């Protein structure tokens, strides 16, 4: 049976892993390669390295971090942040990533999705969407959640799929960093609108939040950062509890 994936996300800046609440108040959380390896050993099904500053000065530092993490990592590795053209994607794949996540660049030039999918395969293209509640619908934000686009999340998810995205990484900006639970309504709406896997992100704080997002939210995977690397919840414990709750997970792994 296909299992629900638990994905550990590492926000990286200046070659260090950091975590803040709703993209603010960043705290140091360690070395990317060491964190990635530790999470994989703990049972993470996949690792995401997200370059949260993504300025050109940091580009080499990030690629070096990806390369070091990839060397000893034998689970899928996705990398996002600052990928604006196909050459950026190529350099990230060269460094050892299996997938790239594109967010703002995909909104600004949607043909980039197709371009990367044609060259590296759809399985390698994750379109990341930052979503914020607007009454009864959800709006797409870009530039690290700072800029509203006026676009509807459901429509953008459908378009991303049509253009060749292999997965959607869906972050609820309202829930991100709060540890108050995933936005199951948002996740379910997108999961039902597309036929590609949807990774839920933003709000993980307890085991029951994961149970909810897999059952009610119909997520294919769930991503979290702070609860793992500050050891609020170990992935091993989380998976054992999910298994006990009859959510199919890779356990033991």
């Amino acid at each position, binding site marked *: *049976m296909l299992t629900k994936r638990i994905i550990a996300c590492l926000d990286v800046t200046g070659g260090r892993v950091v975590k803040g609440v709703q993209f603010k108040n960043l705290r140091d959380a360690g070395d990317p390669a060491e964190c990635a390896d530790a999470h994989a050993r703990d049972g993470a099904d996949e690792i995401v390295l997200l370059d949260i500053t993504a300025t050109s000065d940091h580009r080499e530092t990030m690629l070096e971090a990806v390369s070091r993490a990839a060397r000893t990592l034998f689970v899928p590795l996705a990398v996002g942040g600052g990928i604006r053209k196909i050459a950026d994607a190529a350099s990230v794949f060269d460094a050892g990533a299996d997938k790239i996540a594109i967010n703002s660049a995909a909104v600004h030039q949607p043909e980039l999705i197709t371009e990367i999918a044609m060259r590296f395969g*759809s*399985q390698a293209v994750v379109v990341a969407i930052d979503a914020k509640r607007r009454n009864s619908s959800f709006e797409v934000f870009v530039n690290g959640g700072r800029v509203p686009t006026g676009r509807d999340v459901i429509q953008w998810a459908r378009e991303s799929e049509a253009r060749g995205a*292999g997965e959607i990484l869906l972050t609820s900006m309202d829930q991100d960093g709060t540890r108050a639970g995933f936005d199951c309504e948002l996740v379910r709406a997108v999961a039902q609108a597309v*036929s590609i*896997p949807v990774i839920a992100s933003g709000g993980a704080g307890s085991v029951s939040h994961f149970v909810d997002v897999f059952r009610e939210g119909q997520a*294919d995977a769930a991503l979290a950062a702070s609860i793992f690397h500050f050891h609020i919840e170990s992935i091993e414990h989380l998976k054992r509890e999910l298994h006990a709750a009859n959510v199919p997970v890779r356990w033991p792994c």
Partner: protein
Amino acid sequence: MIAIVDYGAGNLNSVRKAFDHLGAEITIAGHSSTIDAADKIVLPGVGHFSALSALHVAGLREALLKAMLAGKPFLGICLGMQWLFDGSEEARDLPGAGLFSGRCRQFPATVKSPHVGWNNLSLSGAFDSELSEHRESRTGKSGPEISRLLCHLPSDPFVYFTHSFYAPVTQSTSATTDYGLPFSAAVERDNIFGVQFHPEKSGAAGLLILKTFCEV
């Protein structure tokens, strides 16, 4: 020396990295002469079946078939496994190697496609009766055949998949996986092995499979 075939498709680096980690001696083969000189061959691949057309252009196809016929251990991964079959609905005009019967098809509409993530293998006990009889007459031993590639794995191990097309279950299927329907997760006949999943991305279980391949 294990040759990893480079035909411009996908995850060559990941596969190479895994073999490096295992301490295997690796060469990247973009020409038939490198394949001719290798002891073992790995055909990786991810993406669209049409990517395999590059094997025809570079004359790699003939070199691969020759090596397999000569008894060199061969491991096809993902698209590399699908190539061992007759062909795929994904690129109807492009023939596969035809070493295993059947064509690759798209998953039914009842499940999400692509099939992405960790799923478990059901290892087949006596997966190839033809081979069993052959071994029996050769070695005098009977009993169920266990896959030489998967024999060290724990029961029902989880491995990582990412694909939209699947290969049918045949008498050479050494492991099946269920996703809307049972399909060939691994095939095996004599020196020829194929896995639909990515052993280089399947954690400890995957590394164990690659280590076993190094030792067959």
